[in-house]
Every structure is written in structure tokens, then in C-alpha cells.
């Protein structure tokens, strides 16, 4: 066996391990798939509305400023809209909830986490958020109070009360609630890494350039080595 075939073998072995590992980390909870597109302005803006109307009652996204909402081309909201959203907060202020940590602790027993990085910061990412929002059910054991039992939350006992009122919703509302959950997941996925679309776009050019460079250098190397035997 030479070093090359050996390396290939190692790579294959490693990637097998990596893939079983990734499967394993999905673990026992089966996440639903979130239909999101972080480059879809309409979905992101709908998600923003869900975020400000529902989530921001308790959660902040302190790393996202109102000015940022205007500046990110994916959102591109108008100055008027930004003014409306921020109320009396500064344009450069982060999107912070008006619920004080003390009050939150008193009402829910916990301070709700900041959501700026919730998608990169949770296994399953946007799928997890979507599954969580549509994961409220009755506790099969009948112990946990309604609204505090969630299928995908680790340990199932969740302090956040069913924000989209998913539990026992009317059949007719399912599509709408799923859409809200998808939209806000998309928004959260976007703000988790707000330069991701730009990054992928630039990445395409970088890869193109490097391919060309590699080709030129390959030909150059071959030319220079052609009389070495």
C-alpha cells in the first residue's frame, strides 16, 4: 500500500465516523424540517414581524440594531418602519425586550435567553426552533401543566409558555401557525449570521478565482518539471 491509497482510506474512515456522529447528535428527538430561505426578503420581513410582535415580549436580540434592520440588504426596511419599531429607543440600540430580567424571573422562573445567536447556538438550528414552536403537546404522563410540555425541548419541561398558541389550535389555523413558525425561524437563522448571504456570494467568486489560479500553477509546475525524470 502506498501513502496515497492509505490517505484515501483514512479520509473515508474519518468521514464515515463523522457522518455517524452527526446522525447520533440528532439523538432521540426527531426534528421537523423548517422551510426557510435566509435570502427571501418577504419571509424574513414576515419573520421580523412575528419576532417583534410575539417573541420580543420576552426575548431580546441585542446584537441586532434597528439601524441594522435598515442596513442589511436582505431586510432593507425603511427609516419610517425602523422608527415605528424602535419607539423611544435609539436607532443604534439593539432590539431589546421591555420585560426586565427581574420581572421575567418572577413570572417564568427564568430569564428568557437572548435570541441573536439562538440558531447557531442550538443543535438542529432552525429546524430545532421550528420544531420547538410547533412542539407543544399534552404531557403523555399527565404531570406537566399544559403549555409547559414540549416534545423537542431537552427534558420536555419548558418555562416558555406556548408563544404561538400551538396547543389545541383549530385545525383551520395549522397552516398559518406553521408559516409563522417557519418565518420566525428564517429570521432567527438570518440574524444568527447576518453576513451569510454576502459570504456565500463572495465565496463563489473566491472559489472561481482559486480554481483558475490552481490551473495556471498546475500548468506552470508541469512545464518547469517536464525535463525531470
Amino acid at each position, binding site marked *: 500500500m502506498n501513502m496515497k491509497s492509505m490517505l484515501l482510506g483514512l479520509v473515508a474512515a*474519518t468521514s464515515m465516523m463523522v457522518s455517524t456522529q452527526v446522525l*447520533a447528535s440528532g439523538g432521540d428527538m426527531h426534528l421537523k424540517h423548517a422551510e426557510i430561505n435566509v435570502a427571501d426578503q418577504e419571509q424574513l420581513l414576515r419573520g421580523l414581524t412575528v419576532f417583534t410582535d410575539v417573541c420580543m415580549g420576552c426575548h*431580546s436580540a441585542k446584537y441586532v440594531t434597528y439601524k441594522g434592520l435598515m442596513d442589511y440588504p436582505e431586510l432593507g426596511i425603511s427609516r419610517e418602519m425602523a422608527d415605528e419599531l424602535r419607539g423611544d429607543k435609539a436607532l443604534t440600540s439593539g432590539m431589546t425586550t421591555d420585560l426586565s430580567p427581574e420581572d421575567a424571573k418572577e413570572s417564568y422562573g427564568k430569564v428568557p435567553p437572548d435570541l441573536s445567536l439562538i440558531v447557531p447556538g442550538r443543535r438542529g438550528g432552525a429546524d430545532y426552533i421550528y420544531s420547538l414552536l410547533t412542539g407543544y403537546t399534552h404531557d403523555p404522563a399527565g404531570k406537566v401543566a399544559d403549555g409547559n410540555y414540549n416534545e423537542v425541548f431537552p427534558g420536555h419541561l419548558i418555562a416558555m409558555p406556548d408563544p404561538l398558541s400551538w396547543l389545541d389550535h383549530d385545525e383551520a389555523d395549522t397552516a398559518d401557525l406553521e408559516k409563522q413558525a417557519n418565518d420566525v425561524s428564517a429570521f432567527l437563522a438570518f440574524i444568527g449570521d447576518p453576513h451569510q448571504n454576502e459570504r456565500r456570494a*463572495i465565496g463563489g467568486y*473566491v472559489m472561481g478565482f482559486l480554481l483558475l489560479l490552481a490551473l495556471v500553477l498546475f500548468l506552470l509546475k508541469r512545464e518547469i*518539471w517536464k525535463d*525531470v525524470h
Partner: protein
Amino acid sequence: MLDTIMKTKVFGWVDRRLGLEAIIKSQLTEYPAPKNLNWMWVFGALAMTVLMLQVITGIFLAMYYKPSAMLTDGGFSVAFDSVERIMRDVNFGWLIRYMHAVGASFFFLVVYIHMGRGMYYGSYKEPRELIWIVGVVILLIMQGAAFFGYLLPWGQMSFWGATVITNLFGAIPVLGEYIGQILMGGFSVGDPTLNRFFSLHYLFPLLLVAIVGGHIHALHTVHSNNPDGIDLDQHDPKNVVTFHPYVTMKDAFAVSVFLLFYSYVVFFNPQMGGYFIEVDNYVPANNLQTPAHIAPVWYLTPWYTILRSFEVKLVGIAAMGASLAILFVYPFLDRSKVRSARYRPMYQGMVIMFFIDVIVLGYCGHSAPTETLKLVGQIATAYYFVFFLALPFLPMIEKTRPLPEGV
């Protein structure tokens, strides 16, 4: 082009004062490299490339990064906030940060392959022992630099990883507790730890640059080994090519291919599914809440498995230390006169097993511990040491294949 530059007046002026021409000749245009070197010999140049990328991106990150654990709104910290500032508000900050974070993983990937090459072709053996030994020093410093750097974003994994490792020192008798406290700057990982880790994280790569200089100097004294592991007359043009332009062009092509892989990850998959940037590190450090599963980043997991393979913590620490220390004496444990595994049938099998063994160790160290994995880890740990300790006895039973006359 080099010729044209060397004929200019300015070059002549500098040359008379620095002896540049002699250096260029002896190190580049007339420095001999075996002409049968295969692609495994490009990884040294790749390691140098990543080292440079890390230093440059690191310098820019340090312009915006703030090493302070002081709490800010939402349970974050000044340090965590400053990293998010870089990711969101600094022009192309996201690029610099991802290049640096992804670069750390690529650095280890490249250096591990580089070491594997040396092990396979016997580059650590006489007369290249010091190249190898300096290399092991480099490896230790790299691991230190990575460990220090990982604390800086002050996320959950940063905090708990550093806590687990610094606590290890506490288990060492007599001096352990003291060393731990010196490292942490207190009795637990906190703001003083963050400050000194930042300082050391800046220092270590600069040490690396200097030590890599020594590594190359040692190499240029004894010259490169080759895939056949045979001694070559370095003055015979039948055996060698000049470093420039032959090897420089080969390396340049290799660098461009490397950059393709690296850029793919940086631009399209910087977290690499939690392997390069761990999910839990997007959660701010919280000293009251231990993450469900603490594991070091992939490149440190083989050693973590060795550590965890022993019931008694102190034995685990000793084993982990020994697994690194044994690398220093590797050139002296191996007593075969033949270098390359190509001509050593038994060693060849053993060293390939060793590579697989290290991957298995890494896998076990990354996964949540189970009984089976623990056993697998223990067996892999045993083989890790058996590999080295069997080397002195190998020449007694190994029938090596005849070496080729030349290249």
C-alpha cells in the same frame, strides 16, 4: 525574474552589506531537493502557509477583540460582545474571524498529515532526529496556542473546556494546585484567566515562527529525506532538483489547492457541523450551568481519550503526558537502519494501524462517553503505546526489503 532582480544596483548594494546572494543561492536556487519527493512533502509548506494566515488574521482580530469577562446585558460579556461586533459590524470582520477559527482546524489537519508523512517515510530517523524533536516542540506549542485561543470568545465551551483542563493540573501532586492557580490567575477560570490567556495566545504563535525557523535550519543542514528513505548524494544532479524553481512551483500549486479546500469551508461551511466551531460556544459562558457534554475540539480529542481511559485521574494525566513525551524519544526507540515503510513490511502495517488508532482515539474523545466507547478508547490507548514500545524490538524479527540503488 530572480536573476533580473539580482543584477540590479540596489540588490548589489544590499548584497555587499548582507551577503544576500549567498543566502539566496544556498537556500533557494542551488539548495538541493530530492527529485523523487512525492506530494506528501508539500505539507510543510502548507503548514507554513496556515501559520502565516493565522498570524495575520490574528493581528487584525486583536485590533477589535477585548479580553474582559465583565458581564453585559443578556448574560453576555465584553469579550463575547466584542467577537460579535467583529462578526456583525466590523467591515469583513466575519471573514477574518472565520478564517482564523477555521484556520486553527486546518493547521492541525495539515500538521498531523505532515507528521504522518514523517512517520511513514522514517524522516524522524538519523540524521533528522532534531528536525523531528523540534517538530514535537512545535506541536506542543500549537496545542497550547489553540487551548489559549479557545477561551477567548468566552462561550460555554471556552469556559468549561478551560475549567476541565486547568483542574487537571490540580490533580498533580505537590505543585499541581499551584500550577493551576498560576494558569488561572485565581482559584477558578475567570477574568484574570481570560487576560493571561490572551497574552499567551498572542505570544505562542510568535514563538512558533521562531521555532519553525530552527526546524527549517535543522532540515537544511541535513537535507530532506525521500519516499525511499535512502541516502542520496545531494550534489549529484541525477538525484536532486534545485529548490527554486522546482519545489517552489510544486509548493505554490499545492498551496492553491489547499486554499480551495480552506476557502470552501470558510465561505460555505465555517462551523463544519459543530466540528470547527462548536455549537455550545455560541452560548455565552455561564459558570453556574455545565453544558450537557464537554469535549475539546477535534484536534485535541485523541489525547483527551487517553486521559479518560484511566479510572485514576492522576494515572490518566500521566498517560496523556507520556503519550506526548514519547514522541520526543521516538527517533531513538526505532532502531531499524531502514527508513521508509515501503521497505519495512512489519513497520508499515504497524504505522498504518497507528494512524487509524489515532483517528479512533479522536472519535472516542469527541463522543459522549459510553461503556463500549470507553473500552474501545482503552484498547486504542494501549495500542498507541504498544506501537512505540515495540519499535526497539522490531529489527530482531523484521525482514526488510532490499533498498533501491538510486532514484
